[in-house]
Structures are given as C-alpha cells and as structure tokens.
C-alpha cells in the first residue's frame, strides 16, 4: 500500500474518507443522501462489512452495489434486509432508539452544532430557500450519536443560525436533556479542513484535527466565530490508497441504472 501522504485527493474525498472511518462494524447508521451515503457505503466496503445502512425511505440493511442518487433508489430496496413504510422507519426504528449514528449535512452550523437546512435570510422572505428539514431534526434528536459532514466557510460556520432546523446542543450543556432529546447529539463534525468535536464541558465545537496540509489558522479563518483549537491538535491520517480506490469506484457508479 502506498504511503498516504503521497496520494492526491480532493477535499470532498478527504471528508468522505474521514467520515467513513467513524463508522464501525455492526453499527446501525441512518444515512442521508449525498456525502453521508457515500461515506457509509465506503465504510461498508472497506472496513465495516456489517455496518447496517438505514435510509429514511424505509430500506433497512441496504447493501447497494452502486451509489444511489436519491434515498429511494430501487437499488436500495432490492438489496435491503427489510423494506418498511416511512411511518415505521421514523417511529419504530429511529424514535424507537435503534440507530447508533446519524449522519447529517446542513447549510449552516453554529458553535453548539445546531444546524440550519431551511432558509438563508429571514423565513418569510428568504434570500435562499433551502429544501428544509426532511428527516434531520429527528435524526439529530433520536440517533445515539450524530456526525455532521459539511464544507467549512464563514458562510456555513456562523455565529448565529438564520433558522434552527436541527438541534445539536441547543443553547449549551443540559439543553438536550431539557428538550427531551434522547441521543447524545453531535460527537464529530467533519469538514473539508479538519475535525471538530464538542468540548465535554461547554459543548462548544473545538478543532481537534486538521487535514494534511491545512493549518489551524486557515480553519479559524473559515469559521464565523472565534474557533477554539485543541492544545493537542492532531493531523488526520490522509486517505489511503485502498480507501481512495474503493471510493472512486463507488463514485463512478453513482445513480447508474441497473
């Protein structure tokens, strides 16, 4: 296997690979479409063959041979252990507490890992109307843990969300319990620049890792608040040749017909 740092990879690839490493064998993962789905399938093919992929379309244990374009591609139903209705997937499987990790993206995140995927600007006359909540609020609420994956910039990592679609840590420690949210919330934010984790005491996101070649100043620069950097800041292991090979062959199948 080549030494990782000698390989070339895109920022999207490093995000996907790093996110996939957090998914361990035997976990149940509630998968959104796009990068989370790619990361989950990479994990399944690379190091977690028994990772259970649950899509909100009702497919439980999907093992797609090609990357789906939507969360409801036929490929997911055909390869799933079980296909259930949408009421069941949300009520029994997610709210019922059977999901280990939910992966979410968003348009904006704040320092307490709350997420906005609804509007940029005011709700009543938005500058950008985004798709909206989908399954995110309950994935954020009821999964045992949450991983957020999104590109980092001052526009997306903001001091104050334009709209709170999904709760990370609310207004701070104790808020999740007060709100009746049963999962422990975001444990990790994966960006194109590095990794952020909540401080165990304040819940504030702290930069714990930078990706190879990225400086902490660059990350602070791309953050809309005064980002804390961990004392023992580390560098993420770059994608390996094996990870990139699987990822690229997966990407090549995206949305392809059977």
């Amino acid at each position, binding site marked *: 296997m080549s030494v990782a740092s000698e390989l070339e990879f895109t920022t999207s690839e490093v995000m996907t690979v790093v996110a996939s490493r957090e998914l361990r064998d035997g976990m149940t993962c509630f998968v959104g479409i796009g990068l989370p789905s790619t990361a989950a399938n990479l994990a399944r093919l690379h190091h977690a063959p028994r990772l259970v992929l649950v899509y*909100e379309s009702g497919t439980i244990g999907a093992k797609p041979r090609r990357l789906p374009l939507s969360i409801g591609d*036929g490929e997911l139903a055909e390869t799933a252990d079980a296909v259930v209705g*949408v009421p069941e997937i949300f009520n029994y499987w997610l709210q019922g507490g059977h999901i280990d990790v939910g992966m979410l993206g968003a348009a904006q995140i704040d320092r307490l890992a709350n997420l906005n995927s609804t509007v940029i600007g005011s709700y009543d006359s938005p500058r950008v109307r985004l798709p*909206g909540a989908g399954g995110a*609020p309950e994935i954020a609420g009821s999964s045992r843990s949450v991983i957020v994956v999104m590109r980092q910039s001052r526009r997306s990592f903001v001091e104050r969300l334009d709209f709170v*679609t999904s709760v990370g840590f609310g207004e701070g420690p104790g808020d999740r319990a007060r709100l009746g949210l049963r999962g422990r919330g975001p444990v990790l934010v994966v960006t194109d620049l590095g990794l952020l984790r909540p401080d165990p005491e304040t819940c504030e996101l702290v930069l714990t890792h930078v990706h190879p070649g990225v400086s902490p100043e660059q990350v602070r620069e791309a953050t809309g608040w005064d980002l804390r950097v961990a004392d023992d800041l580390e560098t993420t292991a770059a994608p390996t040749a094996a990870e990139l090979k699987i990822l690229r062959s997966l990407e090549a199948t995206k949305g392809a017909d059977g």
Partner: protein
Amino acid sequence: MAEILGLAEAVAELVHDGDCVALEGFTHLIPFAAGHEVIRQARRDLTVARLTPDLISDQLIGMGCVARLVFSWGGNPGVGSLHRFRDAVEHGWPAPLALEEHSHAGLTNRYVAGASGLPFAVLRAYAGTDLARLSGQVAEVTCPFTGERLAAVPALNPDVAIVHAQRADGEGNVQLWGISGVQKEAVLAARRSLVTVEEVVDELTPRPGALVLPGWAVTAVAVAPGGAYPSYAAGYYDRDNAFYQEWDLVSKARETFLAWMREHVLEPSAVA
C-alpha cells in the same frame, strides 16, 4: 369497490379547485401522470401535501396550481434546488406560495393520525427548533403517566389523495410493492382517493413486499402506464436519473420551464 375511470375523468371528478390534495410517493411511484392531468385541467388554489415535493410539485407550483404547500423536504433529490418552488417562495412567481413546513416525522405522523381517526399524533420532535414556531401546527402535550412533554401535530385529512401503484384488479384492489412511503396512510386519511396504476390485471398474484389496498377503500383507479416516470415503478421501469439532472437546467428559467411544460404536458399529443 373502486371505480375504474379514465385519468382525465378521474381527475375531473375527484380534484376540485381549492382542495387539499396529497400527492405521495417517496422517490418511488411518484404520481407524475396524475399531476400532469391536474395541470392540464388547470386546477387552482390547491393545497398540495407531500413529504418530498420534487419535480411534480415544482411543475404544479410553476404552473400556478398551488396556493399552499404542506411539506417536509423540497428539493431535487441528489441534484439540488427546486427552481420553481424557490421562485415562488423567493419572488412570488407565478403566485405567492404559502408554506406549512414540517419534518418528515412530523408530517408522516399527521397522515398516521388522519388514517387512524385521531385528531392528533404524538412524537419526539420539534423541541428546540424554529420549526415549532412556524405555525399553529405544532403543540405540546404532557404524558399523563410520566409528566414528559412531547410534540403533538394535528391530523392531516386531505380532500383527496393521489398515489401511483404497480397494478390493480378489476375490482379496484390495488397492489403496490417496493418503497411504499406514506401512500397507505395518505389514501386512508383522505376523503377521496385516486390510484393510478401501470396496468389492470385479472388477478393480483401475491408478491414479496407487496401491500394491497382493498378496492372498497379507494375511490377510483385509473390506468396510466408509465405514470410514475421520470421516477420509477419497481418491476416496470427504472428511475430516469438523467431527467432529474436535466430538470435542473429546464426549470432554472421561467421561459424554458414554460416552454417545456407547453410541449410535454399541455400539448402532449404534439410529442406522441
């Protein structure tokens, strides 16, 4: 027993101006043919309910059929924005669009309550989000046993539900398999229902993963082969992913959108 009608006739009979119309189908079995017929018949002032407003909703909105959208995720799955939806929300074109916005779990449970003959449903949701503050559509209830506070959403009972399925028999019994979304709940919650199907067969042979809606619980069935295209009908045809990507371009500008609708929906005979 469901009446078996022509699509135009069924829409004329069941869908009226001002109705609340649920169009369901979660990525799979989206009722495009029926939606196009609603557009051709120029229905106005509709409240459209749909978990995932996507291309069919974009088309209905852009053609001015929709006054209010009840939804939880409005996008072009895997591609990006719905441009006609955004244009209506951001610029009021062709008409202002009122929004009644939920999470998937919230809107799903509104249908479940509607199908269950209950006035509301209880779920763990909305707490701490701005969604709870948008409308009178979310309230709080207290568990009489534990004192816990939970979210309540009101039942959704559409005037009419429209869904697409693979097939029906002559009595209007409907068989549907693959990803089934909230179609059963939408049909059972609605006052009237229209199911379009790929075909009517003599007998519904049992199939793995299939659910059956008895004909007596459905108002009308209409045959519409390819009626879910460009989404898919498991066992009949695949999703046309290229179409979804192409729609991003077609729908970006009002003019190209209108030209496309004119050519492909309003005057379908012109394109064979």
